[in-house]
């Protein structure tokens, strides 16, 4: 392979790991990174554009500390905003903001950035603007990343566990149960997945509170996504059970359960564990699709999918496409990163 290409793939690999690290940090520190509470509404700022961050004031004087002016809805009919240039609000790092629980445990007030001494009456810094209800888009995007990237790995984990259990049973059982189980798995893989997921979702009420909707999605994904893991596990178990060390284990009189759990499983686990990470994009995209269509994770809880549904509105999309498509960019980056790492794993294997 020419040198420039292998260099490029090295850069791609590092970028992929960087993206994933950043996303994990966002998931862990979402409340700290978001300047405001994701449900807090500022009624005076519906659909405001991103707040311009300035260094030069009205008199042409340069300030080393960035500042903003308050945005005012000057024309409610056409939704036009102007800046009130009389007071300037300094921005800073690690400022006091809305209360939250750090890592969901410790009460805290410090936010990564915001308006210094930002009382409730002060100007708001909305670096991505606000949505039609006056909520800060950036805070919502951060929370959406957290929610989606917690729900999807949970779904993947559950599907992985089910697939692992079914695959081990199938691989270790006699011919007839094995044929039946693998027949079911093959059929599941051959069906149009999203249509089946939607059909199952149709069985439940369309409007659900966020937590219940999330657990419903996790369960639906688990019950539709186990087949690939089960196939892989079964193949590995069938190959391993013919090996000499299993024969040896049996000859010293170990029970079959013990052989399966203590001797076959540890040998099969590494390849199956890698597959779990590879499944993540599939689950994320299913969540995104369902939430986008309005039957997944629902308002007021933001998720990558339901934030995207704002982009399906053509009038909004025409006005500020970049802001509305940011969740899509996050999704694409995540999927691409996993894809690059997967490709890399495969080429090191072969």
């Amino acid at each position, binding site marked *: *392979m*020419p040198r*420039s*290409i*292998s260099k*490029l*793939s090295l850069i*791609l690999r590092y970028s992929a790991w960087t993206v994933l690290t950043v996303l994990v940090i966002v998931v862990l520190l979402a409340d700290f990174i978001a300047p405001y509470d994701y449900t807090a509404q500022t009624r005076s700022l519906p659909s405001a554009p991103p707040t311009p961050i300035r260094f030069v004031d009205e008199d042409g004087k340069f300030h080393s500390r960035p500042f903003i002016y308050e945005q005012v809805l000057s024309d409610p009919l056409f939704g036009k905003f102007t800046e009130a240039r009389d007071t300037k609000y300094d921005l800073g790092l690690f400022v006091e903001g809305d209360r939250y629980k750090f890592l969901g445990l410790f009460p805290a007030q410090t936010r990564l950035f915001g308006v210094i001494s930002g009382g409730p009456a002060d100007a708001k810094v909305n670096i991505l603007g606000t949505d039609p209800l006056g909520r800060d888009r950036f805070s919502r995007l951060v929370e959406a990343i957290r929610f989606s990237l917690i729900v999807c790995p949970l779904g993947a984990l559950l599907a992985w566990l089910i697939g692992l259990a079914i695959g081990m049973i199938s691989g270790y059982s006699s*011919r007839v149960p094995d*044929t039946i189980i*693998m*027949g079911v798995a093959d*059929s599941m893989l*051959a*069906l*149009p*997945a*999203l*249509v*089946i997921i*939607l*059909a*199952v*979702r*149709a*069985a*439940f*009420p*369309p409007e659900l509170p966020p937590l219940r909707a999330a657990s419903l999605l996790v369960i639906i994904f688990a019950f539709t996504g186990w087949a690939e893991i089960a196939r892989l596990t079964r193949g590995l178990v*069938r190959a391993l059970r013919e090996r000499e060390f299993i024969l040896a284990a049996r000859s010293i009189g170990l029970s079959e359960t013990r052989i399966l759990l203590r001797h076959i499983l540890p040998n099969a686990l590494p390849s199956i564990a890698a597959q779990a990470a590879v499944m993540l*994009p599939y689950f994320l*995209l299913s969540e*995104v*699709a369902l939430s*986008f*269509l*309005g*039957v997944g994770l629902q308002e007021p809880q933001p998720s990558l999918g339901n934030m*995207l549904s704002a*982009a*399906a509105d*053509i009038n909004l*999309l*025409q006005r500020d*496409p970049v802001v*509305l*498509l940011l969740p*899509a*960019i996050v*999704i*694409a980056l995540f*999927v*691409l990163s*996993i*894809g*690059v790492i997967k*490709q890399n794993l495969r080429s090191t294997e072969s």
Partner: protein
Amino acid sequence: MLNLVFRKIIQGVLVAFVVSAVTFSLLSAAGGDALTNLRDNPQVSPETVERLRIVYGLDRPLTARYFSWLSASAKGDLGESLYFKTPVAGLVFWRLLNTLVLGAASIIGAFSLAAFLVFFSARFPGSRLDGILDIAAVAAASLPRIVAALFALAIVVRSTGSAFEVGSGSWTMFFISSLVMAIPLFAVLLAQMHSGIKGAMKEPFVQFARAKGLSENAIIFRHASRAVLNPLLSVLGLSFGTIVSGSVIVETVLGWPGIGSLTVAAVRGRDISLVMGIVVVSSIFVWFGNGIAELLQVLNDRRMLAVESAWPN
């Protein structure tokens, strides 16, 4: 051979049976039927709802309802859609045909481009194209349809201004929809054909063909491509499923009246008989596509017959 066809058909019938039974019981057990909304309507008395339940047979036990649905659908009658007020069978058929047109266009497009690129990479081995194709396959595989569809929509909306209408069924929208559908297909086809032909060009039969004095083009088209055909067919068979699944998002965003947008309408409207019809018909359709692909693989390579009938390992 005939044995295989027979087995595939029986398997397909079994799958359709199980899928329909599971979906039917789930949709019924979860409570809430087409009359749920009527119950909240103050103008409709509970007696009327009860009478309607008897009229539509919703008071009968689940198994009885399922078997009457099954016997009716075996005759091609999938019931009436409450949302669209038309028979389900015709609706699903025409919408599936629309999706098939879109899918066929995207498969042809994706295949032609991938084959063209792979031919050049095989013709000039060791060139920079090899690495570029590897990266292109990963990139295209990682571009989710929902992202591609929304970006395409944004570009169209920005460039045509407010004169634009979603669902106008214009040629531009057809072209864009099939392009978005084609991206992931292009990725799998490219990856499969590229690695396949790279492997095949190292095989002894290619060496032999070279020794015979065949031209490089003839080797690629007549010999190496034969070896790539089988995995390619299996990928194409699986693409029926991805087309039906992918159509859900692409058609909803870009407004193509196919099976995907119909599914969304059925789920949103809680149109149970329509959901049933879609699930069963699209499952059978996808199963049929896979089956045909498998048969073609056996026709291309008779050794597959032994693999097919042997104990799977």
